[in-house]
């Protein structure tokens, strides 16, 4: 069981779970074969479990008996001008009722239009119109699910000239209007900062401390002069540096290693998760010492 938060500053609505990894089909056998769960918690991609039966649900039940699980979706399309997909919402609600996840999250993006799905996390303009629209939809989702959700910042390759605020200003305003939390993807901050030329430290400094319920870490790849959010590499040094910065600001926050392509053996992903735990401890050590000194 992970220790209680040292700083107790993370979002009080979201329990600190420790360090987790994504539950991926490549690791199903290895995860179930271990007597004890190899990590503190697992994340599932909700969309992959909205089926009535079969192996995914069987594995999920087995994992949930031993470990906290969080649901992470990719298809709410919170920013789309399409109506919310009520069937999808019902599926999420039913899955959540069955597995009682510690958290439910999706992305600050849109991915569908006119009933068609791009199966991608498309960027929004950071305008007052978009903010009103997304906030209203987050409120409706939270009402349907009867729980507060976390909204994740995405990696982006396009910025709109009409944006009147930064992405972090938009996220902060969204939290205030919709009373939702933030899933802070540190790799996405790193990728977008590179692609658009902003300071990643400003992003972290601009997110309200009491709204961050979960952190994502992942690897990315290079495409010409830009970075792509591919989740197919280990976490790079620059992202580890940003993670330590985030921990110093937000305190202990449940942290996930995402590895979705060229997936290595379970032990390698678990090792990356343990590295995150060590990085968190190292980042908090001076603050703890300072607190003790001042106390």
């Amino acid at each position, binding site marked *: 069981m992970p220790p209680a938060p040292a700083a107790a500053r993370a979002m009080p609505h979201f329990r600190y779970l420790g360090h987790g990894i994504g539950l991926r089909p490549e690791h199903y056998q290895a995860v179930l074969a271990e007597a004890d769960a190899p990590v503190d918690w697992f994340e599932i991609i909700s*969309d*992959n479990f*909205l*089926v*009535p*039966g*079969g*192996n*995914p*649900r*069987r594995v999920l039940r087995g994992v949930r008996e031993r470990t906290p699980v969080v649901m992470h979706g990719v*298809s709410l*399309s919170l920013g*789309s*001008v399409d109506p919310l*997909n009520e069937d*999808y919402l019902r599926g999420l609600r039913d899955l959540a009722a069955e597995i009682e996840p510690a958290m439910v999250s999706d992305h600050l993006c*849109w991915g*569908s*239009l*006119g*009933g*068609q*799905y*791009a*199966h*991608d996390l*498309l960027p*929004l*303009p*950071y*305008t007052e*119109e*978009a903010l009103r*629209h997304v906030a209203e939809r987050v409120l409706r989702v939270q009402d349907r699910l009867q729980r507060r959700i976390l909204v994740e910042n995405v990696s982006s*390759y*396009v*910025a*709109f*000239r*009409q*944006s*009147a*605020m*930064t*992405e*972090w*200003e938009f996220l902060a305003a969204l939290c205030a209007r919709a009373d939702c939390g933030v899933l802070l993807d540190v790799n996405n901050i790193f990728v977008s*900062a590179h692609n*658009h*030329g*902003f*300071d990643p430290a*400003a*992003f972290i400094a601009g997110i309200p401390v009491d709204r961050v319920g979960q952190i994502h870490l992942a690897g990315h790849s290079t*495409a*010409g*002069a*830009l970075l*792509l959010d591919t989740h197919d590499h280990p976490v790079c040094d620059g992202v580890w540096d940003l993670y330590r910065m985030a921990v110093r600001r937000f305190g202990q926050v449940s942290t996930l290693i995402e590895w979705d392509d060229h997936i290595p053996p379970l032990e390698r992903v678990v090792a990356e998760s343990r590295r995150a735990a060590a990085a968190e401890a190292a980042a908090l050590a001076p603050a703890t010492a300072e607190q003790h000194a001042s106390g």
Partner: protein
Amino acid sequence: MPPADGRAGGAAGPALAALQGQFFGLITAPEGVAAGLAAAGLRDADLDRVIASDQRASAVERLDIYANMYFYRIRDTLRDYFPATAAALGEAGFHNLITDYLLAHPSRHPSLREVGRHLPGFAARHALAAGGRPWLGELAALEWARLDVFDRADEPALDRARLQALAPEEFASLPLRAIRAHELVPSVHAVDDLWSAVNGGADAESSLAPPAERETPAAFVVWRRETTVYHRLADAAEAEAIAWLQGGLGFGALCERLGQERSPELAAQRASAWLGQWLADGLLLSVGAE
């Protein structure tokens, strides 16, 4: 270069609905963003007024990242779902099939899992099928059925011992019902040979023999037991009988239906043989589980 604080400048721009319409249209344009712009009567400069660019990447190049992701993510997913179909067509053939497929059947379900549902029917009508591959849709249908039954509801299978414990009159009226995790796929070509070759490791289009036409039409029975998906060939009569089981049918009624075209003794023999096979397969739903 956008301002270093990440704020793009608050320039006048299209309303959210119009912006998303333009964006979506360009990233799903079959020939890419530049061609999509031209088809809409727009120039690069028009896009530059909406999307920030710098010396590293133009607005078109940045949007092309999303266009490529849109197509390749779906194509790669479909290649995972239809490995034998992809191997039989080769890289270029499968790429072209999926390009045409997405124009006719863009994804309309939030789950990527559903994106291939219409591919078997589409492949059967595609020019690639008409051009010497009449088996194409059938092969894709077998692959889709195998994928589809994998995620269907878990149900207990009827157990032989449970059946043997029944009194004769109970047995005759017992409603036999197929589990939901099964599918029947009509087959007029031996596409299972090609499927086996690819799943046995063959992956070169040139090394795969085209499936021969069967002497008599048959059907694949595809089903899941625990976490394994199986398929086998059934003759037309057995396939018809399995279809009857979807609504539930007593063993006595099965014999009666079969007896309309053959002697009662032959009908009973046939039904008994099928019943033994269905029990061994795990194709029948346990009594009381419906």
